[in-house]
């Protein structure tokens, strides 16, 4: 980072940020969402940059970016992956290429609001904060905040808890609160830390639950994740993958990863016993209820036990147990903004 940029960042109270966008051939989304982002960066005048990663594996998006925006142009860059690798790999590529320490990982279906970066960057001034997430409004609806996240157990099976999506948005309209993880489509984190941890865990490839894993691992390691209500963005939820992939397959991957996530972090004899019992019960319930899909989800997860072992081995020492992370990271009503 050059000194003048650092100075300019300090001058507006923020450090420069690299915005990394991993994208398939989502030209329409970029057409809609890049201009406001670039305008915001121009407003910030902090030396931020935008790195668009073309994950089509064919360079088609890069070619379009070159013709459409003349990239590299100003803060906008584009790089192309040789092969389509999915969200985790594309983000890794982008973060590697980022020039600033603060990196905002962003999906092309996210529309940022003015001033979205400052509250996040402010949150990351605390070294114990692993990442920060804006108030992410699902399709721009004020009552549907996607980024207030937690994990809850239902019949001893973990599931994502998003209370602000389910009628409690009012409680999270302002302030800062701890959340279990930052939604991967709009998260500010530290480049070095991200790269050092190996980025998103490949256990979950091709998509979904990598962000939960990242945040949960951070909590487990003793850090925390913050939700900043003053930072606002909109998310056109799952607008990227679902347009190209069979809905049933997407759901199967999500549910598979839900199980893999729990299996990666689960600890404690009693918790394990209870969970294994719950899995058997889940299988029997699925069988008796003729729920083919549920059995497929389980079978898909159980086919990745080798990858699971390797993934568990990658985890460092735990500061918090599974249950402690679930409890400690559970979102509470947001505190006033600092």
């Amino acid at each position, binding site marked *: 980072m050059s000194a003048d940029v650092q100075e300019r960042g300090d001058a507006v109270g923020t450090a420069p940020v690299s915005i990394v966008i991993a994208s398939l051939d989502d030209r329409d989304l970029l057409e809609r969402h890049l201009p406001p982002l670039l305008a915001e960066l121009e407003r910030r005048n902090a030396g931020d940059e935008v790195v668009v990663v073309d994950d089509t594996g064919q360079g088609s998006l890069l070619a379009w970016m070159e013709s459409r925006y003349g990239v590299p142009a100003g803060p906008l860059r584009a790089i192309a992956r040789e092969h389509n690798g999915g969200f985790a790999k594309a983000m890794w590529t982008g973060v590697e290429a980022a020039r600033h320490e603060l990196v905002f990982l962003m999906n092309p279906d996210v529309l940022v609001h003015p001033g979205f970066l400052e509250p996040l960057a402010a949150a990351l001034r605390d070294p114990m904060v692993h990442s920060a997430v804006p108030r992410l409004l699902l399709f721009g609806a004020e009552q549907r905040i996607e980024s207030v996240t937690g994990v809850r157990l239902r*019949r001893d099976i973990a599931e994502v808890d998003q209370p602000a999506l389910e009628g409690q948005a009012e409680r999270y309209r302002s302030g800062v609160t701890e959340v279990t993880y930052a939604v991967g489509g709009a998260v500010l984190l530290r480049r070095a830390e991200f790269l050092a941890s190996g980025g998103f865990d490949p256990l979950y490839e*091709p998509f979904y639950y990598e962000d939960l894993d990242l945040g949960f691992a951070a909590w487990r390691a003793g850090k925390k994740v913050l939700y900043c209500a003053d930072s606002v963005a909109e998310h056109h939820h799952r607008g990227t993958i679902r347009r190209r992939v069979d809905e049933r397959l997407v759901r199967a991957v999500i549910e598979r990863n839900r199980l893999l996530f729990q299996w990666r972090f689960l600890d404690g004899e009693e918790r*394990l*016993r209870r969970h294994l019992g719950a899995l058997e*019960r889940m299988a029997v319930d699925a069988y008796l209820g003729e729920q083919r899909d549920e059995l497929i989800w389980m079978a898909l997860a159980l*086919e990745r036990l080798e990858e699971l072992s390797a993934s568990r081995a990658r985890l460092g020492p735990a500061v918090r147990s599974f249950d402690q992370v679930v409890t400690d990271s559970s979102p509470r009503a947001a505190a006033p903004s600092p």
Partner: protein
Amino acid sequence: MRICLVAHGFPPYERSGVENYTAALARALARAGHRVNVFAPRSVPELPDLSLRREERDGYQVTWLNSRRPPRDPAEALDPPQLAERFGAWLDLERPEVVHLQHVLKLGLGFIERAAERGLAVVYTAHDYYPICHRFTLLRPDLTRCSTLGDADACTRCDLALGRLNTVTSLGDYHLGAFPDSLPDSVRTSLQAVLEGDVPGSGLAPEEWTSARARRVSLDRRRAQVFQKVDLVLAPTRFLADQLIAGGLPKSRIEVLPYGIDTAALVAADRKRAPHEPLRFGYVGSLTKHKGVHVLLDAFEALDGRAELHVHGDSTDKVYVGQMRDRAKRLGAHWHGAFEARDLPGVLARIDVLVAPSIWVENQPLAIREAFASGLPVVTSDLGALPESVRDGVDGLLVPPGDPRALAAALGRLVDDAGLFEKLRRGVPKVKDVDVQVAELGALYEKARAAAKRRLRAPPSPLAHLADVAARHGELDALPFDDLFARVVRGLERLGPVLGAPEMGGAERTLRAFAGPSATRETLADMRTERTWLQTQAAGFTEALGASQREVRWREERVAELEREVAWWKERSKGSETGLAARAQELSWREAELTALRGERDSLAAELKSLAEEKLRERKWLEDRIAAGAKENEWLRGERDGALAKQAWLEESRAEVEQRAAWLEGIRKEQAKKLAWLEGVRTELDSKVVWLEGLRAELEPKVAWLEEVKAELEPKVAWLEGLKSELEPKIAWLEESLTGLGKERDWLAQSVANVTAERDNLLDEQRASQTEVDALREQLAAQMGELEAERAQRLAQAEEAKVRERELETARLELEEEFRAAEERSARLQQRLSRETERAESLQQAARAWLQRLEQGTGGNTSAGAAGAADAGSEQRAAAELLERFLEELRWRRGEMRAAAADMDAARSRWVLARTHLGRRAVRWGAAPSKGDEGRAAQAEGGGG
């Protein structure tokens, strides 16, 4: 390979050819290592509709779909509601790779669609013409063969003709149709009109024809479209394949694959028959009209008992089965009825020739292949694909279809020509085994799977980084549900160690798996709650229904009551109408009177008023006049006063004034008189007013009475109006009911007319029968005459016989006499024989003694007695001669004796014979002789004579 066989029925509930074939195929496929699941419908009343039940059997599974609702119309018959959806859900669980449909009757075209849209290989075996003929046999409802394939008009006529048959309840489950001869005249006539397309003659409205045609076109189009989705159609015969192609199925998807059957139990036994054993023909199969059992029975009758016929089988067409059974029994055929599949070898072992007399364009009857496998030649119809199964003169005989004479001739040839039977028996071919067919099917299934893959629209290729997970998902999704579950359960076994979980024993695992919060338990609890709620609701509905029913009953009672009331009112109205009319007339009269009185009253009142006004005017005028007079008087008084004042002064004019006063007094009197007159007039008027008032007072009670009457009548009128308005809807309803009843009556009248027509038909039949009976009676009378004549003849014969009997009696007596004489002669001869014998014996003894002495004398004195020897020699010769003569006589006597004995025996024989004949004739004379007896009687008489 995972194979699903779909059939419209399956043993033990259905046991016709296709069902048994499917069972054999399932067994064979399972033997070959395939995973086979048979999907078939059944109807079990105690199970919920559309419920599935699984059953393990002979290495394969059967899944029963409970289907309790019969189709309500042709559209539902083609696509029964919900069955296909249930099948689709089942396919999603079981994930067969091949769906091999044997038939979709009762199941619906949706079965083909559900399999095809899942990308499964769809194979259909055409056991009949279902893909191209909604009646699947190319037979019309009158059981004649259809030759207009794909003609919508012809198919419409079939639909409408079936509607005609459905009106004849006596046909029962007529299956495919009915012979016109078995129908009432009216139905037969309209049936023929419908089948000939005679719209006016059909009795159906033109719009019925139009809508029926539109419906048929729509249904046939749908069937044709759905069969385009079948990847491979298997036709057991070339004939059927050609028909399917002609009907629009793609030639490239049709394969000819003759049936294989399970031949394990069917062994060709050595069937050498002894010459005296009758040939045994057999029918084995479904006893339906189109199979032609009636043709066989006609043919069997013509064989006149020269062979045996064994009929095995049954069907739901109980009327036809009953008729055939009765006829078979009358003809002396052996009726065996239904049999178990396992008994088939025994059934075939007990016949020599199978007869398959079908009248429809048969495909490839399994019975023929089973017969061949058992070494039996086959006699069948030269029709449809049957010549592909039976080679005329090689392994069987082909006869024109529906021709009992031709069939009888063919059967007769086999009866008469043992060599032909043996030749055909030797020509019976080896039958393809179902295992061979399974091997052929393996290749065909692969072909169908390839076609299915081509048919299925390729899913969008996933992104490269999704390819692996998409492939894994696809593979898991293609697993049968049980396999998927097993994979998960085994995977969970491996998960514990990966997570570092402590080992759990079986009991703990079970407890943790089942004793925790379970979605199934929650669902079941919810269902129980829901069921309880539904039961409560149902109870409520039942109660409400009961209440409704009670109310309906009450309403019905009320309606009946009202009807009675209406009837009563109607009855009463007949009387009341008169009374009412009188009352109305009276009321009218009263009203007229009242109106007149009111008019009178009003005119009187007006008159009174005008009089009063006039009087008032007059009175006013008079008062004015009086006032004016008074003023004048006042003035005059003033004047008088002035004059009196001036009396002195006006003394001279006093007289004049007095005169003037007198004049004025006269005027005043006149005026007073006028006033008095006016007063009189006023009084008169007042009295008139009083009279009028009196009249009014008199009239007012009358008016009041009339008002009262009116008031009294008005509620009644209102009540009557109310009653009328109340009754009017009821009357309208009753009229509507009456209209409905009228329609019903019309319908009943129509029915009665139909019944009458039917009765007339029956009467015609009865008359025809009566005529026949009369003819029979005449014939009987003629026969009786003949019998009477014969009786008279017999009586004459009896008389003659009596004469002959007497003659015989005489003869007998003579014979007895002769016999006695012969016996006496015999006795005498015996006595004489005894005497002669005794004499002969004594002579013999003497001779022997004499000879002995001679021998002794010769032997004892040979040297001394030479002379004596010479004497002795002469004596010896004399004795020998004597002896010889004696023996000669003895022989003669014996001959005499034998002759006498023979004579006596002959007499005895004659006597016994005569008695025997006599006895026989006596017996015969007691009974009427048959034709055969006549000859024998004549013989007997001849013998007796």
